[in-house]
């Protein structure tokens, strides 16, 4: 079982990202689950969403918040400052973060691996959201696929096509650009 946690803010598309991740694995035949932990449905409020991808021999499934994720995706780098996203993250787990900065400069403790991608700029380039409120979810998924290999880029793109059919081309382009431009730091401990 792989457990993923996505941290974002209302309007960035964290919930759709969790669904697309689940969809990507579901299309490969896995049992999956995704679930948003809504705060208040208001732009800017922190949003957490979860995704579980089961192994073929898993029989029983739980329904609870993911407290010890294998990897996390952080759609807004300011959330990292609070420390909340890193809580419970398994050692060696990936922190895939939307940031123009270098992975080593983001203040993430050395037991984690950091992948940084300028998802906001990519989203704006592909017309996703506005410069003030870019919708970064699909870009971050591309970076996640590259960094973790939990899902492949093709699986992510197919899932995006399923989850956001209306803007599929732009979102696919954003995910692909993120896949190609994500910068990955090495484990430091």
């Amino acid at each position: 079982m792989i457990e993923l946690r996505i941290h974002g803010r209302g309007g960035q598309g964290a919930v759709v990202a969790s669904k697309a991740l689940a969809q990507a694995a579901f299309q490969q035949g896995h049992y999956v689950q995704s679930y948003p932990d809504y705060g208040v449905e208001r732009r800017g409020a922190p949003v957490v969403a979860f995704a579980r991808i089961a192994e073929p021999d898993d029989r029983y499934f739980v329904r609870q918040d993911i407290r010890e994720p294998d990897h996390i995706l952080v759609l807004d780098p300011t959330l990292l400052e609070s420390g909340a996203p890193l809580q419970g993250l398994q050692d060696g787990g990936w922190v895939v973060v939307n940031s123009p900065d270098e992975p080593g400069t983001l203040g993430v403790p050395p037991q984690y691996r950091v992948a940084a991608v300028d998802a906001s700029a990519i989203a704006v380039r592909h017309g996703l959201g506005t410069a003030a409120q870019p919708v970064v979810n699909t870009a971050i998924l591309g970076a996640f696929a590259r960094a973790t290999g939990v899902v492949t880029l093709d699986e992510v793109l197919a899932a995006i096509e399923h989850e956001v059919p209306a803007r599929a081309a732009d979102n696919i382009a954003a995910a692909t650009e993120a896949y190609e431009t994500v910068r990955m730091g090495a484990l430091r401990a």
Partner: protein
Amino acid sequence: MGERHLLTGNHAASYGAKLSRAEVISAYPITPQTTIVELLSEMVASGELDARYITVESEHSAMAAVIGASAAGCRTYTATSGQGLALMHEMLHWAVGARTPVVLTNVTRAMAPGWSIWSEQTDFLSQRDVGWMMLFAETVQEAQDFVVWMYRVAEQVFLPGMVAMDAFILSHTSEPLIVHDQAAVDAYLPPFDPLYTLDPAEPRAYGGLVNRDHYFEIRYKAFEAMERAGRLLVEAGEEFGEALGHRYGPVDPFMMDDAEIVFVSAGAMTSNVRYAVTLLRERGIKAGLLRLVAFRPFPFEEVRRLLEGRKVAVLDRNMSSGHSGIFAEEIRSALSMGAAPTEVYGYVLGIGGRDIRVETVLDVADDLMSRDEPARTLYVGVKGLPIGPARADREIARLAPLEEVSP
């Protein structure tokens, strides 16, 4: 048969209504239900579902609309949640008296204030005495299937039925399910054949005054119909398995054969309880689980047969304040009629959407094993307090004046 999809519990309920070929849908939006009727309204708008969607200004009117449509001979569906269900309350009684087999999905939501959108079953269980059939779904699959199952029984006994689904942990959880083949559902669920229909060609007065010389008999027929529904639920649940591949019944036992301690639960938290039971078994503890699927009609026989003589922890994500968790109350009542002595411990947890985790269930197991006297109500997870009864001697504290508090 059917196709595998990844859907949320809410959208699964929408598919339940669609597969049932609901003809009139009326609802008022409320979180966390809204996406059920949102998808249905899209289906109606696109022509995918041949139904009339009636927008209204409140849940009370939504229920009035579907009662009227049902009386006119249509299969009707609505969905609501929390405060919305409470606002429907008067009309819920009406649907029973009018014998309209309306089906409703309620996404359980804690009542305000404090304002909350998260799961708690008190809203649903507060409708205990209105005379509707009541089911609890655990999975996305069931959120869909129970709508179909409910129509099948409701339209045979002319009683309305509601299906509960926990807010977010089911309503907004995407997981795989089989969306059944329409022809297979059509074979299972014949078209609605109403007893009476509102028809100008055959004018009748509906819902008029019934004096005390007659009311009891009329109501008695509804009581009898509910007793009959208990049998039909079992039959229709088994037939569901034959026709559509999932077998359902009013209770769902797990590892009960040799169980010494038994958890009773309902709804989505059951998945975690089941997982906890497997862990307890790995530790050599003979634990079992009895999931309640039907709440009304209440499965007296099954409950008595499966629980008597065991140490029972009833897990209630609800509370009848001044008494017990509502399931605990019902279980004790079922066991009071001739069953062997059974220890029932009432645990109240997960109020207002507090996460009920596998660890929470294991904590309850430890507490249960440490007790030797049945307890009425034990609260689990209140901050700063161990699992235990409410404190009757706590003084009510007044708010400190504002100026005495530093910001």
